[in-house]
């Protein structure tokens, strides 16, 4: 028998005694006997692998056993063995985020959950602990569109406890080619209502929280605050910068993804020591330079792949397994079927996550991205530069014959057109304007009015006198004049 001195925090496990007896010829045997007698001590002295925890120090008389024979150190009845704490702590480093999780373990799993998640549970990297972490986790998905669809579906299927979704849009036919949360009968419904039905059917255990609002600098901090991870499924620059900045300010990881035509990107931003979106792109591109998916198109299966990468990263961060996509920027080319990876570093001069940040609260992101709400133009100017679909129709009906130039791409022209229009794609206008007469009245149009405004500016700059831009493009024409034509 030897005497073991028990430190204050462990005394509740030894009936408040500061010294207890245990038997054994070595320190290892003595501790084994001690935990047999006082079973509550075990979890605090030993880790899951049965090794003494690093912050538990054992002294024989006044010598640390690390400098003797460790747990093989012999003890006899006259020795005094002391358990002495080291007290350690600190803030998490990237290494910890890598290794660890978001800190919480959910309630024990029910029998139904064990069945549902059995393919997770049998993998030691996930196991019951990992599944309980998922159950305790809260993930916020920005957008229920192309990226949000696979993100929300896989996260719900995987057993994330709370899934928040922010969106304010309604389901349109043009969404169905890629937004697999929504089906044909959902067209016209709110995306959130549609998403909630699908996700609930998939996994009724998940608490689906929906926020039917446009994400803004006024509501972002409050919306993000209860969540552990934010998944960015936005399709525009102002919101992307907003999501990034709010994540940095709140210290929430941002599982980022974006898609355009055949190319996708993904990374994990805004972890404690990792870079953020602004470390990569400090400034947004000039407005109009990078077209949106509505203008440039997107391969329907592409968001499936990128969204699933975002969901994978969210799940890994929550469970604390694997190597997260922190400090790495993944670029995927669907046509060539190739992945490239760029190394990203945290920029010490980053305006939001650097050492001396200049952005310490959310700003006006529309303004930051150069998109300010268009001021109403004076009516007189309107008459000279723009024409509405209805006006154009009335003039055509009266027998006026302005030349109608469609500046879209040939594949768009194949889908729908204004009768009597001729096609000169925007990119060809500078070399083909000679086909037009500068004194003639010309109406230019595109899908929504953006590209044709550029064409009109160009034509005026080279001396055309009477150029009118069709307001709202062919979409407005179809809405107001010719609903028989398809929209895209």
């Amino acid at each position: 028998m030897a005497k073991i001195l028990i430190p204050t925090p462990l005394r509740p496990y030894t009936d408040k005694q500061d010294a207890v007896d245990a038997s054994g010829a070595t320190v290892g045997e003595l501790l084994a006997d001690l935990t047999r007698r006082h079973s509550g001590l075990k979890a605090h002295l030993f880790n899951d692998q049965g090794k003494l925890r690093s912050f538990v120090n054992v002294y024989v008389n006044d010598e640390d056993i690390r400098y003797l024979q460790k747990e093989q150190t012999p003890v006899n009845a006259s020795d005094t063995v002391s358990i002495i704490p080291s007290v350690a702590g600190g803030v998490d480093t990237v290494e910890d985020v890598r290794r660890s999780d978001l800190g919480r373990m959910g309630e024990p799993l029910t029998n139904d959950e064990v069945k549902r998640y059995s393919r997770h549970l049998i993998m030691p990297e996930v196991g019951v602990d990992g599944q309980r972490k998922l159950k305790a986790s809260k993930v916020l998905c920005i957008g229920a569109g192309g990226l949000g669809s696979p993100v929300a579906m896989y996260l719900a299927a995987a057993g994330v406890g709370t899934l928040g979704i922010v969106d304010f849009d309604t389901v349109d036919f043009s969404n169905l080619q890629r937004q697999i949360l929504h089906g044909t009968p959902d067209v016209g419904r709110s995306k959130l209502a549609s998403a909630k039905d699908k996700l609930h059917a998939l996994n009724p255990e998940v608490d689906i929280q929906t926020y039917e609002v446009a994400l803004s600098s006024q509501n972002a901090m409050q919306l993000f605050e209860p969540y552990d991870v934010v998944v960015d499924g936005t399709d525009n620059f102002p919101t992307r910068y907003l999501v990034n900045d709010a994540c940095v300010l709140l210290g929430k990881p941002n599982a980022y993804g974006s898609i355009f035509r055949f190319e996708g990107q993904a990374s994990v931003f805004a972890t404690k020591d990792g870079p953020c979106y602004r470390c990569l792109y400090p400034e947004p591109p000039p407005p109009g330079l990078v077209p949106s998916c509505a203008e440039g198109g997107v391969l329907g299966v592409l968001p499936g792949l990128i969204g699933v990468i975002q969901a994978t990263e969210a799940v890994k961060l929550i469970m604390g397994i694997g190597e997260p996509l922190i400090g790495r920027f993944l670029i995927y080319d669907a046509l060539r079927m190739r992945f490239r990876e760029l190394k990203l570093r945290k920029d010490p001069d980053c305006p939001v996550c650097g050492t001396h940040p200049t952005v310490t609260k959310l700003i006006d992101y529309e303004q930051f991205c150069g998109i300010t709400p268009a001021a109403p133009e004076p009516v007189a100017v309107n008459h000279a530069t723009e024409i509405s679909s209805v006006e154009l129709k009335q003039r055509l009906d009266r027998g006026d014959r302005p030349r109608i130039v469609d500046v879209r791409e040939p594949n768009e022209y194949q889908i729908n057109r204004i009768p009597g229009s001729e096609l000169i794609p925007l990119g060809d206008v500078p070399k083909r304007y000679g086909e037009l007469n500068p004194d003639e009245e010309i109406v230019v149009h595109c899908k929504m009015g953006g590209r044709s405004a550029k064409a009109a500016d160009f034509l005026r700059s080279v001396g055309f006198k009477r150029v009118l831009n069709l307001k709202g493009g062919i979409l407005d024409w179809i809405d107001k004049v010719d609903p028989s034509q398809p929209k895209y």
Partner: protein
Amino acid sequence: MSDGRLTISARVNEAIRRHGEETYPHECCGALVGRGDAVTDAVALPNTTEEGPRRRFLVRPSDYRLAEQRATELGGELLGFYHSHPDHPAKPSQYDLDHAWPTFAYVIVAVAAGASQAMTVWFLKDDRSIFEEGSLHHGENSHPDPAQTVHR
């Protein structure tokens, strides 16, 4: 041991904040001494970490013993430890959780750009799964002399 409740005197509160501001941008650490759920003294201890004091603190075993000894001398008991989180919120990290002792109160003070911010108290759940936030109360001063409150 408490039911997630800890009372600290105004001077202890002040002393912990000052200690965190003095050591900023490094972490400070120290012991909490008192009776029941009332902390009467904060014992500043050296941060002996070798992993970078901006993100870590370590109270080595010899200083732990010293803290127990000081607690006895002051007629109290060791109730827990405090440390600062420079430029991070006053929430326990995974590292804190991995290294936590049961029953101890863990007081964390956030220090942002050299100024102390929120102060919170946490207790390890018995199964070591999480830290549960306790309630921090501010009590009367029990020492007449403020200089006595921090023992270095």
